[in-house]
């Protein structure tokens, strides 16, 4: 399970990175980022995972004593939570910049947004 999650994380990250690097459409580049982010989230969850782990929420099913033995690591969960929100913020900002870029130069092709160079 852990290995599976790790491999999945790497595959998703690679797909995302590939999207950023190779797809010329602005929206697809941003989608690439979103996929890359998801990959990183999966990675963090994989790091927090333990064999047969349950959610670190204490209730009837999980007493304080059992938590240490069975619950997954709450730290990576907390980190992912933060990362997801930050991911949204960056994606949204990227999109709004993309809208303004297209407004200046109405094309979706990243290759053609090269007014600044050298």
């Amino acid at each position, binding site marked *: 399970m852990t290995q599976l999650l790790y491999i999945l994380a790497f595959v998703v990250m690679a797909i995302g990175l590939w999207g950023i690097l190779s797809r010329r459409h602005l929206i697809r580049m941003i989608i690439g980022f979103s996929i890359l982010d998801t990959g990183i989230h999966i990675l963090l969850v994989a790091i927090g995972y333990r064999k047969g782990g349950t959610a670190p929420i204490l209730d009837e099913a999980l007493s304080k004593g059992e938590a240490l033995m069975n619950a997954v690591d709450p730290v990576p969960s907390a980190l992912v939570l933060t990362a997801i929100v930050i991911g949204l913020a960056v994606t949204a900002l990227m999109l709004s910049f993309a809208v303004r870029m297209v407004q200046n130069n*109405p094309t979706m092709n990243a290759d053609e947004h090269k007014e600044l160079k050298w």
Partner: protein
Amino acid sequence: MIYIVAVLGIVIAVSAVFALYTGKILSAIIASGAVSLVASLIYILAGAPDVAMTEASIGSALTTVVFLIAWRRISRIVATSTEKEDKNA
């Protein structure tokens, strides 16, 4: 459970690739939302319901909405500018 995760993983990978290569941007956006949504299912299985909930609501739903809104505006800008060009030509 490992098999479920494996299947979900394949779904994620396939929709991610689909999102990058499908012809229609609209489908691409939906597919990228699906990547997050399926990922959140995996999180539930991996004992992280908090993360799952966040990923579903923010990573999947809200991000997709933002993408859609932005895409709508962008496509209109591009459309009107091509119309103008046509008129000029």
